[in-house]
């Protein structure tokens, strides 16, 4: 079986992730701030490592939550008020779109959605055109989870800051694969998932806040410290964290980041080369439409395509059941981009990890060639 669904959840995980998580689960349980037995450093050591990895201004501004979706909800519900104007893009995942649409109905926020190109690029000028005096937030993906196209986020940040708004970057698809410097990139809020290119487990997400971005707490509850206070303690990070943390997930994130720091650079270069070569080969197959410009701009290693005359879900089933290649087909939880791709029923998405090989890519190309040959 060849796994090419890494944009959903990466697999396999590096050996050190498996070892560290297994050790953590087998050891005496450590509940952050609540254990008198020993001080494991969890989760604050990982907070510091995360801050270093993404150049966050302070480790205390790294908040661990169950998912990127949770992180986005926490920030949006904590930050936005009635009458606030928000600009987002047609690329976005439902993890961002749905809370925004709900807030539009419940809290009367005003939402504008910037269009994208036929390969998933949002021109900063199209964001600029939507800015109003009441713009409070520009929220955009770093890389499309459908086409992989990386956006000009520094330009988005400049537009936000020039209009007195915050810039939220959803880096769920890029974190761990593309270098992110939260401060230099001008992000006020950085959100990402742990289980994709960072090689953590499902169930760990992170948001990081700039010093001046102070959303209201989304949840409150037990913190293990300052338990005599009637409400959530006011300082970061615990103002934003309540309840027992997913420590196994945090450990997996730590191990994943350590793996990337040690081996990531070369592996990521190889992954990008493999992606570009595969995209070029896929484009050369007659009857296949590829939704990326692998030679233009920076790309995450997500290869969306369709075979003419075949619905994407049928291609997905064929690849999985007839050729043992696991891809994903459909809308990829990003419903708006497909109008711009002219693929209203979705695409087939093959997404690569550093562990995929030339042989995996060759098997995909051969399978697609085989399918296209069989429908002539």
């Amino acid at each position, binding site marked *: 079986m060849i796994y090419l669904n890494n944009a959903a959840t990466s697999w396999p995980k590096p050996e050190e992730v498996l070892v560290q998580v297994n050790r953590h689960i087998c050891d005496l349980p450590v509940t952050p701030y609540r254990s008198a037995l020993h001080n494991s450093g969890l989760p604050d050591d990982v907070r510091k490592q995360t801050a270093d990895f993404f150049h966050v201004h302070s480790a205390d501004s790294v908040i661990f939550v169950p998912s990127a979706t949770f992180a986005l909800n926490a920030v949006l519900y904590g930050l936005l008020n009635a009458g606030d104007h928000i600009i987002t893009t047609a690329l976005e995942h439902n993890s961002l779109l749905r809370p925004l649409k709900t807030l539009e109905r419940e809290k009367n926020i005003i939402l504008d959605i910037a269009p994208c190109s036929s390969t998933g690029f949002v021109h900063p000028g199209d964001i600029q055109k939507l800015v109003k005096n009441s713009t409070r937030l520009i929220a955009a993906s770093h890389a499309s989870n459908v086409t992989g196209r990386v956006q000009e986020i520094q330009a988005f940040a400049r537009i936000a800051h020039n209009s007195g708004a915050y810039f939220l970057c959803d880096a769920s698809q890029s974190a761990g694969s593309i270098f992110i410097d939260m401060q230099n990139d001008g992000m006020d809020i950085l959100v990402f998932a742990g289980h994709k290119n960072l090689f953590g487990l499902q169930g760990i997400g992170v948001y990081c806040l700039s010093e001046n971005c102070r959303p209201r707490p989304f949840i409150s509850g037990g913190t293990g410290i300052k338990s005599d206070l009637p409400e959530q303690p006011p300082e970061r990070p615990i103002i934003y964290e309540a309840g027992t943390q997913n420590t196994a997930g945090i450990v997996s994130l730590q191990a994943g980041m350590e793996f990337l720091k040690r081996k990531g650079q070369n592996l990521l270069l190889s992954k990008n080369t493999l992606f570009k070569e595969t995209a070029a080969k896929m484009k050369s197959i007659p009857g296949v439409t590829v939704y990326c410009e692998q030679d233009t701009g920076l790309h995450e290693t997500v290869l969306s395509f369709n075979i003419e005359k075949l619905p994407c*879900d*049928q291609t997905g*089933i*064929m690849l999985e*059941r*007839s*050729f043992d290649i696991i891809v994903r087909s*459909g*809308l990829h939880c990003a*419903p708006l981009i497909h109008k711009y791709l002219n693929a209203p029923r*979705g695409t087939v998405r093959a997404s690569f990890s550093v562990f995929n090989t030339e042989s995996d890519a060759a098997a995909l190309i051969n399978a697609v060639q*085989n*399918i296209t040959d*069989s*429908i002539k």
Partner: protein
Amino acid sequence: MTIIQIKKIEDCFDGSMIYEIIFNSPVTRPLLDYFAGLGALQYYNFTRPFYKITVLGKYELQGILNESQLKIILARDNPLQFLEEFKIKFKNWQ
């Protein structure tokens, strides 16, 4: 040969009516030929052959030859009636 389970499955679109039908033995070539008689067959002769049978206006069957399950995609009008119709057709084959 009997149906041992019918599971509703979802895709990306609201209102889709898709079920997985699991049999107690594989869909062999004679059964596929019988199903093909219900509509139009597309057969892809891969190492593990893929088939799609379209019964126009009613349902579509998709699966792999010699596997014990198939997917039935029902038309939105009267989907459960078409599911029952398929079950009867299958019973008639035996």
